[in-house]
């Protein structure tokens, strides 16, 4: 990429997105908000995969891993949102602090 963008630029970008996703996961009490934070974290990991694939000489293994991560993220979102809807039907809220039936 002759434009002067280095591998470190992409790694730092992915690091910032990861940190924002971590803050989202830690602070949200809304279950859907937590799932959105997880999506951000998975996207930051994917940026790393593709950056290393690009700067490692254009092999395809990193891209294939990224596709698997996207696939698993889709499965995770489907299951996660189904669980959230089930929680909502039982507790009438999706505040994760409200679902404390299992707390001893």
């Amino acid at each position, binding site marked *: 990429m002759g434009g002067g*963008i280095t591998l470190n630029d992409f790694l730092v970008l992915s690091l910032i997105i990861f940190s924002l*996703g971590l*803050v989202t996961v830690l602070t949200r009490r809304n279950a*859907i908000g937590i799932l959105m934070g997880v999506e951000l974290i998975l996207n930051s990991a994917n940026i790393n995969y593709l950056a290393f694939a690009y700067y490692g000489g254009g092999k395809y293994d990193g891209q294939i891993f*990224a596709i698997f991560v996207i*696939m698993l993220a889709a*499965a995770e*979102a489907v299951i996660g949102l189904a669980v959230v*809807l089930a929680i909502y039907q039982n507790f009438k809220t999706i505040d994760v602090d409200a679902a404390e039936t299992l707390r001893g």
Partner: protein
Amino acid sequence: MLAQVIFYALAALTVGSAALVAFSRNIVYSTFALLGALMGVVGIYILLAADFVAMVQLLVYVGGILVLTIFAVMLTAGIADVKVSNRTVGTGPAIVVAGVAAIVMLYAVMRTQWHQAAAFTPAPTTYAIGNAFLGDYVLPFEVASLVLLAALIGAIVISSHEVRE
């Protein structure tokens, strides 16, 4: 130079949207900000010469996961009430934890001498990825379809009324 301008524009879009996801007081704004973050990441992928992955990201994330999330947000009541819809707790400690993690990772990124191969001319990747999926990666590919089938059935079972009654 042009690539640099494009990179920083995409990075600003992505980071700004992600910050809005993290700090917005309204869950609906957070959801729509996620659209900006995911589109920015699509641009980053194209910049990294990963055309196929970028299109998969566009179809699966923006076309699938995001629409699903919007549906879930709209289906759960109390959206209008910010206190209920997007309450945050412990913002201070969370920012400290994420900041420490970020500083440690930044140190690791800056200290490491990454191996970098010589520059190459980007070419369409679809052919090679298709070959890899039906060659070296055929077992993970098939297991992935099993995972998706299990997720499909599991989601239907979890969210249906009749089964739980």
